[in-house]
């Protein structure tokens, strides 16, 4: 029992590895924020382009969205980091992770935006038309605000999973929380750093996923009320 405490819950080790934890956290924050911003922007772009294309061409974007959603994140990261250099495209480790997560996130975001636009009832368009709104006014004042509201909860949960996925960067040596913890484990010859890393992941991700579940719940309640 004391063996377990010494190797996994060792307070003096936990206090010693502060610098590792901090630099790991900083990297995690940087990679998460960059990939969330890029994913949402790119996802919005994909949605807009997809809506303006007719079938043979829009299939390319459908393939983009479905293909990226089906790809294991590790596989994509390995592909970007180990295969693209053969084409002369060299990414640093953090940029390779950001690029992969952003690509994959953009596919999910595009699906979310598409669903949100479809979720605005057709009657709203008809009503806007009957009230003499121009097409631009209709989009700006009627469709986009409502679609945005529908999109926020799933977008939040997608953002949470992107934060979670930064850990996969470990595979190509990204010095985020898990990578730094492994390093600290080797240096201290003690497994406490791994436990500390897991605890920090939980401390960050538990509230975030609670928050996104709450948003989803409130959103559904709002919809039910609106339909009455």
């Amino acid at each position, binding site marked *: 029992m004391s063996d377990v405490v010494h190797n996994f819950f060792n307070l003096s080790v936990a206090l010693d590895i502060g610098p590792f934890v901090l630099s790991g956290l900083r990297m995690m924050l940087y990679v998460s924020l960059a990939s969330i911003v890029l994913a949402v922007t790119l996802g919005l772009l994909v949605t807009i382009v997809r809506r303006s294309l007719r079938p043979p061409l829009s299939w390319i974007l459908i393939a983009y969205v479905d293909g990226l959603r*089906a790809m294991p994140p590790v596989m994509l990261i390995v592909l970007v980091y180990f295969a693209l250099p053969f*084409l002369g495209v060299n990414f640093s480790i953090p940029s390779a992770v950001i690029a992969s997560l952003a690509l994959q996130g953009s596919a999910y975001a595009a699906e979310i935006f598409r669903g949100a636009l479809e979720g605005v009832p057709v009657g709203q368009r008809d009503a806007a038309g009957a009230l003499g709104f121009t097409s631009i006014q209709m989009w700006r004042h009627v469709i986009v605000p409502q679609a945005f509201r529908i999109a926020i909860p799933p977008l939040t949960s997608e953002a949470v999973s992107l934060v979670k996925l930064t850990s996969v960067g470990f595979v190509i040596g990204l010095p985020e929380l898990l990578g730094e913890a492994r390093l600290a484990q080797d240096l201290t010859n003690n497994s406490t750093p791994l436990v500390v890393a897991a605890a920090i992941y939980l401390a960050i991700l538990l509230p975030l996923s609670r928050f996104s579940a709450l948003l989803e719940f409130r959103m559904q309640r709002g919809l039910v009320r609106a339909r009455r």
Partner: protein
Amino acid sequence: MRLDLLIDIFFNWPLWVSSFPALLSGLKITFLLTGVTLVFAMAVGLLIALARHTRIRLLNWLFVAYVDTFRALPSLVLLVLIYFGLPFVGVKLDPYTSTIIALTVFNAAFISEVFRSGLQAVDRGQVEAARALGLTGSATMWFVVFPQASRIVLPPLTSNVIGLVKDTALASVVAVPELLREARIVQSIILNPSPLMLASLMYLAILVPLVRLVGVLEQRVHRPG
């Protein structure tokens, strides 16, 4: 960018052919990990769902904490903890066992929630009607509740299988020779990333149909009758 260069590097047919046997053996391991984990996770998930159905308060709290924890934690963290951490207290698990344990713990958490919502979604009146018609408790479960719940459960369960297949690729971190690992090994021998592209296409060949299937199944749930 020249097309012939692109083909030579990613879509090199002779290299695809020569690396195919290695990737196929990797694919088998991927399927093995998925299958074994799914069986364990469904069994554990069902037990947890039924335990929560009993509404014993302490049990309920315990499983809520379990489900929340493993829905929030990245699965790679647990895998690394099991494989690289446990040897420090003398518990040395081989890569396969470590992977299957880690993935089971995660997927059981998801699946228990899926099963629970499926059980809850079946109207109480259905159970009462079945009992009024003289069906026993277990017959009610088997012939009335489960068939109706299964239709609700199928789309999220399929989503879970997709996530599980993707997660098996994490096992390459602990050197399980699954698809991704095999592709990396072949790539480092022949110094050409075509095997990585082929492995990606194999994942897509399995997972794109499943992603589409989830969409179809989801629409079916919303349709009455």
